[in-house]
């Protein structure tokens, strides 16, 4: 229990006062010469159960009354269900806010969102606790922001909702840095979150370091999690993908794939999906039966006079979480699907050239075969992807490739004939191995990335591709496909998302990628699509660090659509369409925000193991305060205890009455 005046608790030993008085009373007994001993002996022999119980009960109630008075004077605070947790007035309170879109869910229509409820409850609680300093950590990039009073948390512009996911480890690290650098005294860290897995990243290696660092701090640090983990009931999210502009003669049309999803199975529902492009709205109904319904390649005709570049928005009616009811997109005439191919093996280069040159939509797909040594003269600024078959680049070549990757380009490296020890993005080729019988891929990631299932849902036939020999790979890699011994066949570099390694070549002597062309075609064309996403005049970006980087790199970041209340200092964290020079950037919440995967309570407990950690479960729109003074309850308890003590003491008066009655002459009995 927390007390505003904990020093009053030094009087707690007074609780023993009734007991001491009882013992003193026992010691100052009187001696009486008594005649009617036989009744005393009989009384002693009678059952003492109830009498003794009553005696001790009276004693306990008196002690309880004294304790209640002392505790009431100490001004106790109730902390929800965790009223018994220890603590006092903190010197500093650090409020870590999870502002992700899922925190904007409401419990009832028109009610307060989880984030607003959390901010209000925290403001009330910290005002009651009278914390010395109050700091708000809402963006790890900016660090803690001190507020003048706890009430300011509600009004703080940088504590409002954003479209980006929260990075709890980074936010906590930011709080830790403040405590360490400012040598704050007793500190309370209040985390307001809905425990979503994509915000907490419980598998992140940073957790162990933060936990150890907090445990080693000399000052007392208490961590309180204000959890709103209950999912939003009936929430439906909408997301658009594969937005592309197609031209058929003079007609233009926009092709959009829209996915409507919900977090739990429910009854069949018809969701009206509304498209807004250039001020023109169209609507289409989508039947949602399971958890997700996808409207594939929905065609929206555009006016012939409409510009080739533009933006739009797709939305559904407001529900329990309004943050995922709209999705912005931008479009532009597709740039040429230009690829650069560097191949030391002509056979492999030829295969790659053929595959890269055939675009799925008959768009122009120029392929530049770059000879070794000619990299400096290559059209890097127009290329979407680099296919590289040969020893990893080094020196000037490596710098050129790195610059290409940094601006968003994609690179796919195939195994060289003669591997070297050169490292690139933390990875290096190993030795070639050729099994007696051609191997096939044992497993591969079908849910995302280059080898994901097709839009129709069927898996790529990677199992049919024979790998006659494969080259070893080492370094920080995320395998996308593996051979039987666990050897990576296709892998993505951990340090650079744009780099993919294929541990063989498409040459017929190494693999049947060329003969089973579908897999190679999908891999190559998907790489080109990824590279094109950053090349065109319109691009999509997830709200968060990625969009912030774009906004920062862009000199003129102007909002075209989206919430107007977003502060300019939080560029890239809010959803909307922004103009960046002559390009359009549509910023939306990350896909993981639409999943309702909450981290289990025991998992969270494990993240804070060894620290003073408590969880308080709240609900959106909850009007109760987390912390409130409860001295009235103690006074009522004292009164009840005294009343009960009086009631228990009453039988003594009754006995006296009976004695008086007995003393009347009773000789009439004879």
């Amino acid at each position: 229990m927390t007390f505003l005046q904990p020093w009053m608790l030094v009087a707690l030993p007074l609780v023993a006062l009734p007991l001491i008085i009882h013992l003193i009373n026992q010691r100052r007994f009187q001696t009486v010469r008594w005649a009617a001993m036989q009744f005393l002996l009989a009384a002693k022999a009678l059952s003492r159960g109830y009498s003794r119980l009553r005696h001790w009960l009276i004693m306990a109630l008196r002690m309880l009354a004294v304790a209640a008075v002392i505790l009431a004077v100490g001004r106790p605070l109730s902390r929800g269900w965790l009223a018994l947790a220890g603590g006092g007035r903190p010197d500093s309170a650090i409020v870590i806010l999870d502002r992700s879109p899922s925190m904007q869910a409401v419990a009832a229509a028109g009610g307060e969102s989880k984030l607003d409820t959390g901010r209000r409850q925290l403001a009330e609680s910290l005002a009651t606790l009278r914390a010395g300093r109050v700091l708000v950590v809402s963006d790890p990039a900016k660090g803690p922001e001190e507020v003048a009073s706890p009430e300011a948390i509600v009004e703080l512009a940088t504590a409002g909702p954003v479209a980006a996911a929260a990075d709890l480890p980074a936010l906590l690290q930011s709080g830790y840095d403040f405590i360490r650098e400012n040598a704050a005294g007793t500190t309370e860290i209040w985390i307001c979150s809905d425990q979503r897995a994509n915000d907490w990243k419980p598998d992140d290696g940073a957790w162990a370091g933060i936990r150890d660092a907090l445990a080693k701090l000399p000052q007392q640090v208490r961590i309180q999690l204000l959890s709103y983990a209950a999912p939003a009931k009936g929430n439906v999210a909408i997301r658009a993908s594969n937005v592309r502009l197609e031209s058929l003669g003079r007609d233009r049309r926009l092709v959009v794939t829209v996915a409507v999803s919900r977090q739990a199975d429910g009854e069949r529902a018809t969701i009206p999906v509304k498209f807004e492009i250039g001020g023109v709205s169209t609507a289409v109904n989508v039947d949602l039966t399971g958890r997700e319904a996808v409207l594939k390649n929905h065609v929206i005709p555009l006016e012939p006079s409409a510009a080739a570049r533009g933006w739009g928005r797709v939305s559904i009616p407001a529900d329990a979480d309004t943050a995922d009811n709209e999705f912005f997109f931008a479009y532009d005439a597709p740039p040429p699907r230009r690829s650069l191919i560097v191949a030391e093996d002509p056979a492999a280069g030829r295969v790659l050239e053929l595959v890269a040159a055939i675009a799925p939509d008959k768009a122009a797909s120029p392929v530049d075969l770059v000879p070794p040594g000619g990299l400096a003269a290559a059209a890097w600024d127009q290329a979407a992807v680099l296919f590289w078959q040969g020893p990893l680049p080094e020196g000037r070549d490596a710098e050129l490739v790195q610059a290409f990757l940094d601006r968003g380009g994609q690179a796919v490296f195939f195994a060289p004939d003669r591997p070297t020890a050169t490292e690139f993005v933390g990875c290096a080729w190993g030795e070639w191995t050729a099994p007696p019988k051609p191997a096939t891929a044992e497993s591969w990631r079908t849910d995302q990335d280059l080898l994901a299932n097709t839009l129709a849902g069927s898996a790529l036939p990677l199992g049919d591709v024979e790998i006659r020999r494969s080259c070893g790979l080492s370094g920080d890699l995320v395998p996308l496909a593996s051979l039987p011994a666990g050897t990576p066949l296709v892998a993505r570099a951990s340090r650079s998302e744009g780099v993919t390694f294929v541990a063989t070549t498409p040459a017929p002597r190494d693999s049947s990628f060329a003969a089973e062309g579908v897999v190679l075609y999908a891999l190559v064309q998907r790489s080109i699509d990824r590279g094109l996403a950053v090349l065109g005049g319109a691009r999509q970006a997830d709200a968060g660090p990625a969009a912030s980087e774009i906004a920062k790199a862009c000199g003129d970041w102007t909002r075209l659509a989206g919430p107007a209340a977003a502060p300019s200092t939080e560029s890239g964290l809010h959803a909307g369409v922004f103009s960046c020079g002559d390009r359009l950037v549509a910023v939306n919440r990350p896909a993981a925000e639409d999943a309702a995967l909450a981290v289990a309570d025991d998992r969270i407990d494990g993240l804070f193991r060894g620290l003073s950690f408590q969880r308080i479960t709240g609900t959106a729109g909850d009007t109760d305060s987390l912390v409130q003074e409860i001295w009235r309850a103690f006074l009522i308890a004292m009164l009840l205890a005294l009343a009960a003590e009086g009631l228990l003491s009453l039988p003594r008066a009754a006995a006296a009455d009976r004695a008086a009655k007995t003393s009347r002459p009773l000789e009439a009995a004879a």
Partner: protein
Amino acid sequence: MFTDRQPRSFLDPAVLARLAAVPLLARRPMVGTVSGRHASPHRGSSVEFAEYRKYVPGDDLRRLDWRAFGRSDRHYVKEYEADTNLRLYLVLDTSGSMEFSSGGVSKIEYARRISGALGYLASQQGDAVGISCVADGIVRTLPPRRSPAHLRLVFDVLEEAKPAGPTRLPEVLHEIAETTRQRAVVAIVSDLFCEPEALATAFSHLRFRRHDVAAFHLLDPQELAFQFQRPTRFLDMEGGGAIFADPVDITDRYHAALEAYLDSLRRVVLESAVDYHRVVTDQPYEQVLARFLVGRAAGRGLR
């Protein structure tokens, strides 16, 4: 006639004068040695007709009822009730517990007043008065005599009675029942702190010996109320051990035990036809004795 020249602390002449207006009567026929005011089981020469009896040779011819002979031609002798004197046998409990007093009159002093007054009243109407002081046995005894000088001895015994020792009242009553052969009014003045069942057999024994048993049960107000504020160490006045008790803890159970004892005693005296009087020592003894005497006068005529 007041024969005692010494002033006795337990005798109040004014009280005695008022009580003398009511005679002390026995509830049962008494066998006395001289004529008195009490019913006798034998036929005598009082004016109260009793019965006709057939004449047998040897009867006094003067007692033949000639009118009855004239009517029935048979000889009848007319008999009358006899009146005699009684023996009042005072049994005074002098055990240690009789010394108890919660501030007022002690039980032994109260017992002296009752016994003294009863002895005086009996002596005044020509009855014989005897006394036994009892504790764990008969401490001192005087057999019933009619002479005023004897009454002085009785008063001396009362005055010198000192409470001491434990109570063995039932055994003593058995002994008195055995040793007192002639019918008597046995007046027990005691706190009766013994088992009611044991008293029941003693009372029955006295009744079997045709004694008229009266019991004055003396109780101190504090013994009934048991009102103590502080933890108390109770010392047994009859020489037993000590008991430490917190009144808060024990009062209820003390009262329960006391009530059980009184109920049991009430049943015993009803079954034994004992003239029982519970006396709280804060009551005026004159009132107690007046009620005792009036109660007996109302029952006069029983033979």
